[in-house]
């Protein structure tokens, strides 16, 4: 009987089956067959890889092209070129349509076409109603293959970019993320941000040249899901690539950073804010490292598993020092990622909260984790696993992304097994091997006078956590300090 203490009028309802505690609930088994990439993968006549899935739940069509390009290819002095080109593929019109006409037509169809280039990837995507598939697909391929790069729109884009750039130091989170990356990666495309001179130097011809240099059929991986018949859709895709010449060579992927982050506390001033932002961490591992299952579980227990994790429990729930506090340990795709604890706290308690985070890190190294914590973490990853494939759209997008980044074959089939295999000793070992309290970089942004002052009830200073360096904010336009 479930203990319910409420109005007497309701006790007659049959409660016989409800157990007295949710841990006594029993659940029927759940078989889940992991989708396999080969069931969705096909290649067009020209060799273009397509992941395709029919989905008749709603009358929609989603297409995404992933392109082998990235802002890591920006020439020195033209930082921001790849991003500008990515934006202007869609916003600068197509050979057949002025930008305004393209905007109007897509808006009328309520079809969304967007294009972008980030650090390691180019994307063009389409989302529309299935009834408009033919016309919308035509416009999508025009954006991908035949961008117009209208001069007026480029001027507008540069203007917007420079105005946004002026606000680079407006928000503390913007300052924190930028300085964190600079301290982690040093001189590397991760930190080669656009500046006023570099944006002003970008011309329409640069966009045309960049597109001509990197956009070839075999650089594209397509993912397609929606309300269509597979064979008909494939025929349309074949036709859409017609007459697009290819080339043999492929672009080299992004190089790994060589920077060795210098441990210490780096403080950046921002007046008129009553809350400071703090990031604590160091370099992490790459996803090809077989230990990434163990580090993922360790991080879940330490600070990645929201309220179930130690750092969140201590800093937020016990002490009430922060609303958002967590640690992230995403293994890098092309090179080691970072381990990063981050929180925001009122200025006076920043140092104390930082000290608690470092203490929790040290505890995990010294004493490992408990059986109960590890089983909870494993159970989360195993039980929530199907969530990665919650729709056909996500299935094809995930597999297209894996194809692009070259993820090991059979990763998802073995994922749950690999999680289950991790032992307490593994977690203890990776805590010692990959957590480095002696190498911590700590970034602090906020009202530094108030932060230094601390709070009498919990005395703590950042000097206890490393050599403190106070740095000025960079000029938003040149990024020079």
């Amino acid at each position: 009987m479930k203990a319910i203490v409420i109005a007497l009028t309701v006790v007659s309802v049959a409660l016989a089956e409800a157990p007295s505690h949710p841990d006594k609930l029993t659940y029927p088994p759940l078989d889940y067959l992991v989708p396999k990439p080969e069931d969705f993968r096909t290649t067009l006549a020209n060799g273009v890889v397509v992941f395709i899935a029919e989905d008749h739940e709603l009358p929609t069509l989603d297409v995404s092209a992933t392109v082998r390009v990235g802002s890591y290819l920006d020439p020195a002095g033209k930082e921001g070129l790849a991003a500008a080109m990515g934006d202007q593929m869609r916003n600068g019109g197509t050979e057949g349509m002025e930008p305004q006409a393209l905007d109007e037509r897509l808006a009328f169809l309520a079809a969304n076409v967007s294009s972008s280039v980030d650090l390691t990837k180019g994307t063009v995507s389409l989302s529309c109603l299935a009834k408009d598939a033919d016309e919308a697909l035509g416009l999508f391929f025009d954006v991908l293959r035949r961008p117009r790069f209208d001069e007026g729109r480029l001027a507008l884009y540069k203007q917007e970019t420079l105005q946004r750039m002026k606000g680079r130091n407006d928000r503390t989170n913007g300052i924190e993320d930028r300085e964190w990356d600079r301290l982690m990666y040093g001189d590397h495309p991760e930190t080669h941000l656009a500046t006023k001179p570099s944006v002003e130097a970008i011309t329409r011809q640069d966009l045309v040249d960049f597109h001509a240099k990197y956009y070839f059929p075999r650089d594209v991986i397509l993912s397609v899901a929606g309300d269509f018949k597979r064979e008909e859709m494939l025929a349309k895709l074949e036709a859409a690539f017609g007459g697009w010449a290819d080339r043999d060579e492929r672009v080299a992927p992004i190089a790994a950073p060589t920077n060795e982050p210098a441990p210490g506390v780096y403080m950046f001033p921002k007046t008129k804010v009553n809350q400071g932002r703090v990031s604590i961490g160091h370099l992490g591992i790459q996803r090809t490292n077989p230990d990434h299952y163990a580090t993922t579980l360790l991080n879940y227990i330490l600070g990645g598993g929201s309220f179930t994790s130690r750092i969140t429990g201590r800093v937020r729930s016990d002490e009430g020092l922060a609303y958002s506090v967590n640690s992230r340990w995403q293994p890098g795709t092309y090179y080691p990622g970072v381990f990063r604890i981050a929180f925001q706290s009122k200025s006076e308690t920043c140092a104390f909260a930082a000290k608690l985070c470092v203490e929790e890190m040290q505890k995990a190294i010294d004493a490992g984790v408990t059986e109960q914590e590890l089983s909870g973490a494993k159970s989360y990853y195993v039980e929530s696993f199907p969530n990665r494939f919650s729709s056909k759209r996500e299935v094809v997008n995930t597999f297209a992304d894996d194809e692009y980044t070259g993820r090991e074959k059979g990763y998802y089939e073995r994922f749950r097994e690999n999680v289950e295999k991790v032992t307490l000793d593994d977690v203890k070992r990776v805590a010692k091997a990959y957590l480095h309290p002696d190498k911590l970089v700590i970034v602090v942004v906020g009202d530094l006078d108030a932060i230094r002052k601390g709070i009498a009830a919990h005395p703590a200073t950042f000097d206890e956590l490393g050599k403190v360096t106070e740095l000025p904010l960079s000029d938003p336009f040149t990024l020079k300090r």
Partner: protein
Amino acid sequence: MPRLFACLLLAASAAFAQEIAVEEFTLDNGMKFLIVPRHETPRVFCAIMFRVGAVNERPGITGISHILEHMMFKGTHTLGTSDAKADAAANDAIEQVWVDIRKDRAAVSDVERKGVPVPDDLAQHLAGLMAKYEPLSKDQKAIIVKDDLWERYMRNGGTNLNASTGEDSTQYFVEVPSNKVELYFWQESDRMHDAVWREFYSEREVVKEERRLSVESTPTGCIDEAFESMFWQAMPYTWPVVGWMSDLDAITPADLEAHYRTFYAPNNAVGVFVGDVDAKRVRELADEYFAPLARGPKPPPPVVTKEPPQVGERRMVAEAESQPSIEVAWHTVAARHADEPALSLLKGILDGKTGRLYKRLVLEKKLAIDAGASSDLRRWAGEFGITVKPKEDADLAEAEREALAVVDEGASTPPTLDELQKVKNQLLAQVVQRMRSNQGLAFIIGRSELNGSWRDVKGQLDAVEKVTVYDVVDVAKKYLTAQGRNVLWVKRKAPEPGVDPETAMVEKTLNRIKGMWHDMKDPAARAQMLEQARARLGEVKNAELRKKAEDTLNELEKQQ
């Protein structure tokens, strides 16, 4: 077992029809359930939505709906504690200390209001009480099962686990594996009638940090809040959902209990389930877990305050470290008013990159980098707004004049049929696109049910289809008046010239050596001092600054 089955037929035009199979039932206690089976993945998105939010608060307890949402994760007599009896005793002991703390704090407020310093004995007494509270709270941790409810959802594969509070509604949700839906019923029915307010005082600090994060430490957070307060003169939308800081400090567990008992009754709740589940199973579980909960003693009180007609334009001019912006807002109508569809179309005609505001202000006049419109119709009243992001060097008055000219044209000249049809197409497509995810669909039908019925989703789309170009002119004329304007300007404020630490160090070093130079006659001592200063200044990173420092030292050296 009575069960209703119906289809949500999105038939906005002959060319397009889409059915969504919604099943529904209502328990005797008034709790409503909506179910949409979808078997793509063995998971179910589960949500319970309550008709309560900031609009149901009053001055003194603003933010309580949101704090209550946080506190709902702290557990019950069964969840979150290993010893319910000792836990209750600990909560009582803590509360007794806080009764005294509140008395002291009221006394502190009294003297602060008069502008006199807080007397030492009062400050000491208060500090003594805090020192009494802290160990009590620490001792209680031994019998607290930390974030028990949350941990159990995650251990069982719950994702998208969260809750949110708005002006009109509060919702709790999680996506669970389809074989574990019963866990959701167990935990949610338990906390719906048996919540315990443990760890209240530390959680209140968390909420204050949330307020600092989302409002006070952002460039325009406090300005936006002040503008909303100016906009709503009388309606209880005048305070922010997160609440005023002073009220957060004043809210008590007794206030929470009253709010909870009034609004968390089954007859004020809607359960929504979308995913790999069928209505029969939901009905069985609802009968078992939610049917025993008692209907609230009386229906939650309606909001009675109405916004008085605005008597003249209102204006706020503020400065922030942010891009400049202009906002103009007008009062309109509540959700489900007959003018809602025409207002949606008016918004669509003004908004977006092909909307009239963007075309005029950004593309034609080149006064702004962005411009758009919004229509926010809440349960009890509504707001229509336009926003312009002027260029940094633009004249705000000119940008405002142009934007208002576009609005006035909307009130005098009908849109073209193409413009109208474009927005109709977009409104339909938006609903369809949002329905792709289980959560999106759940919130569309759930929100609609809170405001009336989930069937209104279709009703609204049908009504949109019927709107004519003249209806759009009519609502623009009726609501977007000169007298009804609320205008906000945010101008960029130059950042405080913070002294760069390196510059400060250079200046200090140079001043020191200059000050001592003429008193120091011994050439060896001078040379030594120069050498030390050169070594120190040689480390300066800023090349320009380093050069200037070196030049100064060279000048000094020549004066020998």
